[in-house]
């Protein structure tokens, strides 16, 4: 195996494109090194992107934030601006692994590892985050949900890698939340999860909503029916029941060592409902420009 730490995105893309055999990008390494240890992959080239400008920074852009691909969970959690704007995305990444893992894991890595159970992905999908992909032919932007295409598979072409993630601006009275179910209190992979992003009006009526579920399908599910159940309501019990039912109905999970189909379907609804209530509280307590 070769290790390289290029100084520019172009150099990184060229290395990845020219690599003979298996090439992998290293940001936090919390998935990559585990897969190497278990023998699941044996890369011929590992490209460490942390020495590239911009990979470890968070910058304001278009009312939102651009988050470098190597920004760790701990760094993201310490950023007051992102935390205030997209608390659900921040809490989702913070749920990944231990304090030690937080010192290294990244949004981009969590996305590109393409696990159906990745914690930050449903939250990013709910947030309508976009990614900037760098490849041999330059940069392109796309929605986060376009990256994972199935367990362990991404839409990234040879030589391409995710350089940053953009969390957009959003109006007043809006917020998000993410919840997952794990058997312990820490250290587990999500059995199922839900990210909810809401925009309320000044009276607390839901204007728009996005509900994304994790670990209940091969990729994150954006559940339009669940979101529709909230729009035009003040998230009364009937609306929340409808949300939960729609979420459960949309889930198409599998039985495995971490959970059963019945459990995942039911609890996906429970989590969507609970996350919606948290997002609503956050949105309602937010001091908007027009209040």
């Amino acid at each position, binding site marked *: *195996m*070769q*290790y390289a*730490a290029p100084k520019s995105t172009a150099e990184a893309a060229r290395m990845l494109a020219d690599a003979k055999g298996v090439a992998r990008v*290293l940001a936090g*390494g*919390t998935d990559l*090194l*585990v897969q*190497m*240890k*278990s023998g699941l992959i044996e*890369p011929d080239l*590992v490209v*460490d992107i*942390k020495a590239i400008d911009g990979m470890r920074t968070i910058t304001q852009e278009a009312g939102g934030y651009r988050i470098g691909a190597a920004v*760790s969970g*701990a760094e993201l959690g310490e950023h007051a601006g992102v935390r205030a704007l997209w608390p659900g995305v921040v809490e989702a990444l913070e749920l990944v*692994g*231990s*304090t*030690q*893992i937080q*010192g*290294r894991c990244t949004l981009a890595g969590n996305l590109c590892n393409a696990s159906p159970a990745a914690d930050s992905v449903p939250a990013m999908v709910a947030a309508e985050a976009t990614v900037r992909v760098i490849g041999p032919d330059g940069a392109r932007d796309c929605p986060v949900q376009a990256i994972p295409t199935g367990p362990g598979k991404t839409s990234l072409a040879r030589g391409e890698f995710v350089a940053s993630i953009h969390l957009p601006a959003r109006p007043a009275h809006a917020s998000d939340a993410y919840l997952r179910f794990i058997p312990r*209190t*820490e*250290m587990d992979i999500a059995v199922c999860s839900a990210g909810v992003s809401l925009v309320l009006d000044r009276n607390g009526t839901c204007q728009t909503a996005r509900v994304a579920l994790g670990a209940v399908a091969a990729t994150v599910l954006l559940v339009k029916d669940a979101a529709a159940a909230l729009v035009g309501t003040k998230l009364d019990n009937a609306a929340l029941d409808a949300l939960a039912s729609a979420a459960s109905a949309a889930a198409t999970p599998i039985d495995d060592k971490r959970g059963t189909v019945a459990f995942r379907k039911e609890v996906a609804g429970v989590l969507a409902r609970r996350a919606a209530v948290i997002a609503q509280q956050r949105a309602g307590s937010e001091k908007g420009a027009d209040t």
Partner: protein
Amino acid sequence: MSKIHVNTSINGDTTEFLCEADEPLLNVLRDHLHLTGSKEGCGTGDCGACSVTMNGRLVCSCLVLGAEAEGAEITTIEGMADGETLHPLQRKFLEHAALQCGICTPGILVAAKALLERDPDPSETEIRYWLAGNLCRCTGYDKIISAVMDAAAEMRGG
């Protein structure tokens, strides 16, 4: 396959080593530098026994490549005591009988020190969550929590 030459700082000492490209920092510490205080309980980031800090961040050294240590500042359990003076956490672990077999102890001490440097007055719940990535199979964690809380109080001057 040629090895990679790495310049780094370990416990404040300038250190050079050669490692394979795919070699984790933990193996470098243990096998090349003979700093065997960091332990391998799993090699997959699930147990925390290999905890070190890298540029001030708590990490699992099994999930860091040795090559990534270039230019970094690493601290390990071997750097915790000051000569013959133990760190208050080390002392409190002894006084509270917070270790039995002791295999997890280096990782837990490194992790707890990182916590107290960030938050000198953590609650019991905060300590438990901060240390959730450090498995201990002997103690049931009870005396570890007591020791960390007591050390924090002492370090605050309480």
